């Protein structure tokens, strides 16, 4: 039996309030963080997320790549991302 993906059980409100029903933990994400959280939950990788965010915000690809990787690491640190993040 495969381990359930914690991201799929998260409740994410439009205002950025995040609830993890497995543990009762709550989080705040800012708007960019919410886009990333939902994107990673939907299986998007680094390239796709950089493209998505780059279309919406005034920012360089280099900065986005760094921030996406850092955010993915934050999810791992919180036990919300249990698989390797797709770099492609």
């Amino acid at each position, binding site marked *: 039996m495969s381990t359930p993906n914690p991201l799929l059980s998260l409740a994410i409100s439009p205002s950025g309030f995040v609830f993890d029903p497995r543990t009762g933990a709550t989080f705040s994400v800012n708007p960019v963080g919410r886009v990333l959280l939902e994107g990673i939950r939907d299986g998007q990788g*680094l390239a796709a997320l950089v493209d998505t965010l780059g279309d919406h915000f005034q920012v*360089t690809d280099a900065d986005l790549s760094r921030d996406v990787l850092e955010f993915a690491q934050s999810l791992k640190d*919180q036990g919300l991302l249990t698989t390797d993040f797709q770099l492609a």
Partner: protein
Amino acid sequence: MTTTTHTPTAKPAYTRPSLLRHRSGLMNKMGTQPSLTPTEAIDGVPVETLVEAYGSPLFVYSQRTIEHRYRALRDELARRYPKVQPAWSYKTCYLDAVCRVYHKEGAWAETVSGMEVNKALRNGVPMHKVVFNGPHKEDAALLAALKGGALVNIDHFDELARIEQLSKIHGLFPQVGIRLNMATGTTPRWDRFGFNLDNGQAWDAVRRLTAGGRMSLRGLHAHFGTFVLDADNYRIGASKVAAFANRLRTELGITLEYLDLGGGFASKNRLKSQYLPGEQVTPSLAQYAEALTKGLADLDYPAHELPTLITETGRGLIDEAGTLITTVIANKRLADGRRAVVVDAGVNLLYTAFWYNFEVETTAPVHGVPEPTVIFGPLCMNIDVVREHIMLPALPVGTRLLIRPVGAYAVTQSMQFIHLRPAVTMIGLDGQHGVIKSAETLDDLVRGEVVPDWVEGAASVPGVEPTAPTPRAQTVALPRLTGALPSLTGATPAVGPDGRLH
């Protein structure tokens, strides 16, 4: 993934993504986060203007704040005691420009080494307005100070004997002071310097001094602690000194000329061990002045013979006048999840970071959710931590930060380590600004270095050609140190072109 830069004009501003876990029970009055209202200018001069002109990192002193604090101290004391003379504590910041602002205001110089005495003379302070303290007064400087009428405060019995010896050799009968220490309620007890008043050592020192027949006592010096947050310690200390002065007058017939009751006033900085911020706990200059003079009310002297009250406050006067501008050079995420930011100024410039939690301010609006953050300096050293814990949002590379207050000790204790020291500037009363100490260059770093002959001839690094000749050492025998004292002649010490006493 494309490598293009997205530069649409109508897109919203980007904020770095953040995920912040909610925690309860951690926020309290200690958990204050820095003001996110940016401080765009110092004394009306935009921070960016200063950085463009002088670079980052950059020390900035405010002449306005220096003068304001000095006048406040002088006036608070003068309202309460008839004879007051502040002296500027050179070790706190002995840059010429800073010292001369104080001297223009009327401050004497308080020094603790021959180098500092030279600095004071170089700044135009006559020797009789130099207070000379400290546990190690080099013979040449000590002799010049005695001849010139400086206020020499003796720290220990060995120094007392040395002054007697110098006086015999040079036919002097100097007037001196002695330094006292005593319990005033500070912890730890401040008893490293001077003669202890409580156990009778100070009384013995005065009797020994007068019995020697080579000098007379003109004053008493006491320093009750450092960063003293309870002003009442000054009332206790001043009262004890006053009682001692009364006893000297009645039992030994000594009428004192001055009482130098030191410094130790706290600034609004925040010690790492301090629970509340400085704004809430640091006594005002008026409170310190009130405590000091209340203690001196115990003096049993006729009004016209009251000794002059000398102060040598450093930190309490200048700390708030100094700011360090620094720039974010990187962001990191530590293994424990904390955010870390690396800035271009570290403990090489802020030795004081080992005991202070400085205020950190931004100079432009910064968006994002504040998180627990560590601020690291630029040194390749694990100890290079400017703030161990501060709530900050993500800071883009290039963000300017203001670290303050850093006016006291930061410049004089800064070190030439891994990075050269940056420029120090001052903003004048009318908004003019300029360098008061230039940024260092490699030439400054290697000045005085010598490669001895026996190294010069050794194997060189393969493929590396020396780019400039290095001064070659002369092989000389080291002079033997003897007990002979330097022979200084002439009553008035002078400073030679090399800045040394002659």
